Structure formats: structure tokens, C-alpha cells
């Protein structure tokens, strides 16, 4: 039974209900679905820009020697690739998912602060323009790494200020988005949707939003201090004036490590929705999944210095951060085992969303294991700033966050667009991406173990073969994403394909499947009455 009100046109007497058309619909958007769509399109655009930068990096590294770019420009590419992917692609993409799905999943009519939601999105545009435009400023784009470490930040041109301002704006957008998500979840759930009946995706976002509120202001503080060091004569981090660059690292990673979980917890939520749907079983250990998510979030605040073993910290410090980091494997393991237990003896089918979900579990776990290896101080001291680290975090962020997003697009895309994607094309996208991803990043483990440092435009001849393979894989992976846009996303957006039923997936559960496909502009305007499991509307 649908809880959707009649067509919006029936409410034309009330301006709030009338659906605007043309550019006003998007510029003045307050509807969570429209804003979600804009977030997703924006993040995909940034993903493609960051991807082009990645391919420029890989082109330079195809062979030893300097082929296309000088080392200064290479540093700008690596810095901007990281900043754009983290702040422009992954984070906004998950906010897009949250905008689309959280109100639908908890039976709310919209986000709590619809106008602030609009502002959160539109702040992204000037920030992105400033980031991308910094390439054209005197001295080029920021080149201090995505971590914008002092004292490199003291040596950058005016683009560093533009980068800092862009990060401030992106941070403000994230904080507003987080407040919106928390208030929506805490205050706007349908009657009967208790916290412990909420879909895991909403739970993971609730915890992620608290993480964002806690750490984004810390980053804002750190980069503001960087700004005052650059222009106002302070010396927080500038060693030339008695400042401490190591302190910057501590502050940055106090933000930076929770940030890693900000980029992966919503992915866990998406996978926790998809695995039960295609195993046709209830999620195994729902409560333990919630507690594991909260545990990961809490632990993320006490592990930051595992990024800094080589800065000369005392052995007791190394031991603390080593054991604390290894402790995170426990709640993460709970999640992995729960997904496997959900699949165990399930009536499984492998449509595209499930392929991505299983691919996520397998490849993300590999990234998790290399994370454990890097957590050990004696090993990390050898591997610090090598390609082993690059391989590790790409296994977590590409095979983790990005795979989960693709899984989510295939799983909820029919609900968003009202069109089923082509299974054949979805599977080509999955298998192509999986193969090329591993061709790109698996050899990087060997490069790192052999001692190849990251962020260098050149390398000795001994690293040539693996680098060549990595570059071939990167271009293949990029090609698969162009294929995804042209042959999966565009046809769905244009309405080309079989009409999607209200619930395309036999085993799927949740309120989002109680509304027609595509989801109407207004849903759950009156709080729906739910059954005892809070997964069905009964009146």
C-alpha cells in the first residue's frame, strides 16, 4: 500500500506543493529528491574531473623519466586529485544518497531544514570552482598534498588561500548537511519507526553526521591557523617563527582519520541494505551492526597518530596508537562476518547491485587487511609514504566507498528514475571495473614493498613494469566509468528502458519500496502508519 499523496497538482492552491519548473526548480530547490539528484550529479562531475587528474598522474608514471609534466605540476595534480575526490566527489555523493533515501526510509516528508539543504548544496559550486580554478592562479594549484601540511603551505602561492577558502566553504556545507541529517532522523521519523527499527543506512548516516560535526570544525580551525601563519604574522605551524609543523599533523589527522570513516560508514549502510535484499534473508545481527558502527566512530578519534609513526613519537605513543588502530578490526570484522552470515544459506541471486556489494566485501576486506599491516608501527616505518599506502587507501576508498555507491545507484536507481537499467550493461560495468581496478592498484603493493615513494613524478627503472600495468589499468577503469555514464546513467535519466515496478527487488524491505517508481515529488506528507517491523505502510 502506498503512502503517497495524490498528484502534486491536486494541491496547487498551496505554493509549497506546486512543483516549479525550469531552472527555478533547481536553483531554489527545497525538495530532498531534487537536492539529492543535484548532489549526485555534482559529485559525478567532480569524480570525472578528479579521474582526469588521476589519468594525468598515471600517464606521467607510465614510463620512468619525465614525459608530459614537470615535477611541480605533478605535485599539483596529486594534491588536487586527492582534494577533489575526498571533498568534491565522495563526501557529496553520500550526502546525495542521504538526501534521496533518508526521508524515504524513515517515512518523513522531507529533510528538516529544506532551505538550509538548498544552501548546503549551492555552497559546493563556488568551492569547486575555486578549487578547480586554482590551476590558473599565479604559481598554479596547491601542491602541498591533500593533507596541506605545514611548512609546505607557507611556500605556496595565492592558490593556497583559494584552497583554504574552498575547504572552509565545503566544511560549512558539510556541517549544515550533517545538522540537517541528524535533526531529520531524530525528529521526523514516522510513528513506530523507533531508532532500533531504522534501516542501517539511516543509522550509519546518523553516526557519520555526528563525526562530521565533531571534526569538520577542527579542520576549519587548523586551516584558519594556516591562513594566519601565511598572512597575519602568527607562527602556529611555521618553524621559521618558532611554530611546530608536527602540531599541524596532529590536528589534521585528528580530523583526517575520522574523515576516513565519514567516507566509509555510509557505504556500510548501503551494503547492509543490499545484501539482505539479494540473499532474501533478514540482516544478520542488526543490533551488533549498529553497535559496531558506533564503536568504529568512537575508536576513530583515538587512532590519528598512526599516520605519524615516522615523526619521532615516543615508543609508548606508537604502541598506544598501534593497538588502538588494530582494535578497529574487531567492529569492522563484526560487520564483514554479519554480511557473510546474512548470505549464508540465503536464496541468493546476483543482479548488478549484489555483484557490487559482494565485490565491495571482498576487495574492501583486502584494503582492511593492508590497513592492519600498516597499523603496526615497525612495518609502517618502512612503508610510510610508499605506494603500499597508496594501494591501501585506494582499496578502501575506491573498492569501498565507490563500489558501494555504484551498488546503491543500481539498487535505488530504479526508484529514483522509474526505469530499470540494463543488467548486461551493469554487469559489464562491474566486471570491467573490478578487473581494471585490480590491475591498477594491486601492483602498487609490490611497488611500495620494493620502496617506491609516492608523490614523485619519476622513478628508477626497476619499478617500470608494475607502473606500466597500473597505468593501463587506470585507463581501463576510467573507460568503464565513461561507459557507466553513457550506457547506464544517461538512459535511466532519459527514461529509456523497461519501467521499474514499485519494488524491483523481491527480497527488498523498507519504506522506500512502499512508494511508486519513480518516487513522486512529494512522499509521506502525512506520517504513515507502519506495521510492527516498520518496513511496511499499513494505513
Amino acid at each position, binding site marked *: 500500500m502506498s503512502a503517497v499523496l495524490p498528484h502534486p497538482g491536486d494541491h496547487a492552491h498551496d505554493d509549497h506543493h506546486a512543483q516549479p519548473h525550469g531552472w527555478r526548480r533547481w536553483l531554489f530547490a527545497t525538495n530532498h529528491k531534487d537536492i539529492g539528484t543535484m548532489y549526485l550529479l555534482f559529485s559525478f562531475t567532480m569524480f570525472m574531473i578528479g579521474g582526469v587528474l588521476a589519468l594525468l598522474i598515471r600517464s606521467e608514471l607510465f614510463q620512468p623519466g619525465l614525459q608530459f609534466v614537470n615535477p611541480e605540476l605533478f605535485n599539483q595534480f596529486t594534491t588536487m586529485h586527492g582534494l577533489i575526490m575526498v571533498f568534491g566527489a565522495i563526501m557529496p555523493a553520500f550526502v546525495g544518497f542521504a538526501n534521496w533515501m533518508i526521508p524515504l526510509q524513515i517515512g518523513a516528508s522531507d529533510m528538516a531544514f529544506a532551505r538550509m539543504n538548498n544552501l548546503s548544496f549551492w555552497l559546493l559550486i563556488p568551492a569547486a570552482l575555486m578549487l578547480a580554478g586554482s590551476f590558473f592562479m599565479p604559481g598554479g594549484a596547491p601542491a602541498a598534498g591533500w593533507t596541506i601540511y605545514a611548512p609546505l603551505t607557507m611556500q605556496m602561492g595565492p592558490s593556497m588561500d583559494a584552497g583554504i577558502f574552498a575547504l572552509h566553504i565545503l566544511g560549512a556545507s558539510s556541517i549544515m548537511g550533517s545538522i540537517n541529517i541528524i*535533526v531529520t532522523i531524530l*525528529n*521526523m521519523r514516522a510513528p513506530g519507526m523507533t531508532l532500533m527499527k531504522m534501516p542501517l543506512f539511516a543509522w550509519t548516516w546518523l553516526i557519520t553526521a555526528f563525526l562530521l*560535526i565533531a571534526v569538520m570544525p577542527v579542520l576549519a580551525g587548523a586551516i584558519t591557523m594556516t591562513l594566519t601563519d601565511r598572512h597575519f604574522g602568527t607562527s602556529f605551524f611555521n618553524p621559521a617563527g618558532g611554530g*611546530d609543523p*608536527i602540531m599541524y599533523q*596532529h*590536528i589534521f589527522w585528528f580530523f583526517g582519520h575520522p574523515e576516513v570513516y565519514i567516507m566509509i560508514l555510509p557505504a556500510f549502510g548501503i551494503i547492509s541494505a543490499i545484501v539482505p535484499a539479494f540473499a532474501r534473508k533478514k540482516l544478520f545481527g542488526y543490533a551488533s551492526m549498529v553497535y559496531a558502527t558506533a564503536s568504529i566512530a568512537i575508536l576513530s578519534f583515538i587512532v590519528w597518530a598512526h599516520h605519524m609513526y615516522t615523526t619521532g613519537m615516543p615508543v609508548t605513543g606508537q604502541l598506544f596508537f598501534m593497538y588502538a588502530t588494530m582494535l578497529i578490526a574487531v567492529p569492522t570484522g563484526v560487520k564483514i562476518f554479519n554480511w557473510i552470515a546474512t548470505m549464508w544459506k540465503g536464496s541468493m541471486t546476483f543482479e548488478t547491485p549484489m555483484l557490487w556489494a559482494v565485490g565491495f566485501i571482498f576487495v574492501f576486506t583486502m584494503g582492511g587487511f593492508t590497513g592492519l599491516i600498516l597499523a603496526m608501527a615497525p612495518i609502517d616505518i618502512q612503508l610510510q609514504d610508499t605506494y603500499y599506502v597508496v594501494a591501501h587507501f585506494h582499496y578502501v576508498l575506491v573498492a569501498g566507498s565507490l563500489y558501494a555507491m555504484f551498488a546503491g545507484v543500481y539498487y535505488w536507481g530504479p526508484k529514483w528514475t522509474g526505469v530499470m537499467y540494463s543488467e548486461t550493461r551493469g554487469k559489464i560495468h562491474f566486471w570491467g571495473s573490478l578487473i581494471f581496478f585490480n590491475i591498477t592498484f594491486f601492483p602498487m603493493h609490490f611497488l611500495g614493498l620494493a620502496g617506491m615513494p609516492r608523490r614523485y613524478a619519476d622513478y628508477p627503472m626497476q619499478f617500470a613494469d608494475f607502473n606500466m600495468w597500473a597505468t593501463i589499468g587506470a585507463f581501463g577503469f576510467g573507460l568503464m566509468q565513461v561507459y557507466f555514464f553513457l550506457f547506464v546513467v544517461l538512459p535511466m535519466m532519459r527514461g529509456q528502458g523497461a519501467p521499474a515496478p514499485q519494488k524491483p527487488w523481491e527480497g527488498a524491505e523498507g519504506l522506500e519500496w512502499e512508494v511508486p517508481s519513480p518516487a513522486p515529488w512529494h512522499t509521506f506528507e502525512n506520517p504513515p502508519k507502519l506495521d510492527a517491523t516498520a518496513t511496511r505502510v499499513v494505513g
Partner: protein
Amino acid sequence: MATDAQRKANLRTGWILAGLAALFGVGFVVRIIVFGG
């Protein structure tokens, strides 16, 4: 649609969270200025 009571509750929760964010940001900087790294 949100009721008036819900809107008030939303605003209250929103301001509390915004205050928390401001406290984290300003508090962190003040702590470093006053007590050092």
C-alpha cells in the same frame, strides 16, 4: 508536512548541534592558543 511543534523541536535540535560544532571549532583553536600544542 511538519507540524509547528515539530518545526520548533527541529530548530532547537539544530541550534544545539550548531553550537556543538562552534564549540569544537573555537574551543580547539583557543585551547592551542592558550595551552600550546
